[in-house]
């Protein structure tokens, strides 16, 4: 009797897990479609993304995030090592091995405002070099 009850409970758990699995598969399909629509990662854009290896054009500055270090941003956009240091008047000795979020904390500025400043500095780099 008890064994029968245990088996029934086990079966109910298995059915529940299958439902969770179906939900996750649905979420996967939705996630991929959502990525396609919002981030334009269709096949043609995907190929463009593949070409985006190495140095990125400065127009891609919306990819800048607060967890990135200055060193990484310099590498990503092909900027000279001290360009951001002078453009943003950074005096922290840890530069360039310093993340944007750490720098924001040290100078008590808001994240969104500082990231915007970094993006503008990156965008203006092409203007500076083309002149």
């Amino acid at each position, binding site marked *: 009797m008890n064994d029968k009850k245990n088996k029934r409970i086990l079966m109910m758990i*298995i059915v529940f897990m299958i439902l969770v699995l179906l939900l996750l598969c649905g979420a996967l399909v939705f996630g991929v479609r959502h990525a396609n629509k919002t981030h334009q990662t269709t096949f043609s854009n995907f190929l463009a993304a593949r070409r985006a290896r190495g140095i990125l054009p400065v127009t891609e500055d919306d990819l800048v995030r607060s967890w*990135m270090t200055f060193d990484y941003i310099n590498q990503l956009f092909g900027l000279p090592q001290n360009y951001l240091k002078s453009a943003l008047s950074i005096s922290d000795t840890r530069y360039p091995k310093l993340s944007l979020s750490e720098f924001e904390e040290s100078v008590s500025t808001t994240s969104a405002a500082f990231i915007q400043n970094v993006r503008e500095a990156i965008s203006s780099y092409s203007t500076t070099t083309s002149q």
Partner: protein
Amino acid sequence: MNFFLSSLLSFLLVYKYPALFIIVFVSAVAIPFPIDTMLVAVGAFASQGYFSVTVSYFAAFLANVLGDITSYVIWKRYGRSIIREKYAKKYRFFGQLEQYVKSHTGPTVFASRFVGIFGPIVNFLCGYGRVRFEIFILGSISGNAIDTVWPIVLGYIVGSYWENFSSVVDICSAIIAVLAITGALVRIYFQKK
């Protein structure tokens, strides 16, 4: 992106391979960090020339295997004295789980490498259950060799747009976890019959 992953990525960008090794090692020993998503990011960094694919792969693979060995040795040495008297004797399920891992060591260790949260648990059960080290290490090496490569390759392919795919990676990990649990439950259900 959550604060925890952001902090891991900053740490990774500052200290590179030693940071990668430490994060993956700690994750294999005890704390299940979001390693798959982090390795996708490492693959993307490699595609941008900031990391090397080969060095990243071997650092992560070695850290995973050494983490598994450390966890196994710790639980083999101290597991029984810490757990047995207090918990294991009280709960019959614990004994059944120990027996299950003992009789299916290789496949269990291999499969658990693909589901971050299961790795430390299976390491504990293997150490505690004192399964044969050769079988444990074989499962660990083969599982980690495959599990470490796919997120790095995915990150390398999608490059700078890796963040668009991070939620998809999380869902895939969850699907693998649910599949593994369901498979084990179905097996138990038919064994009882």
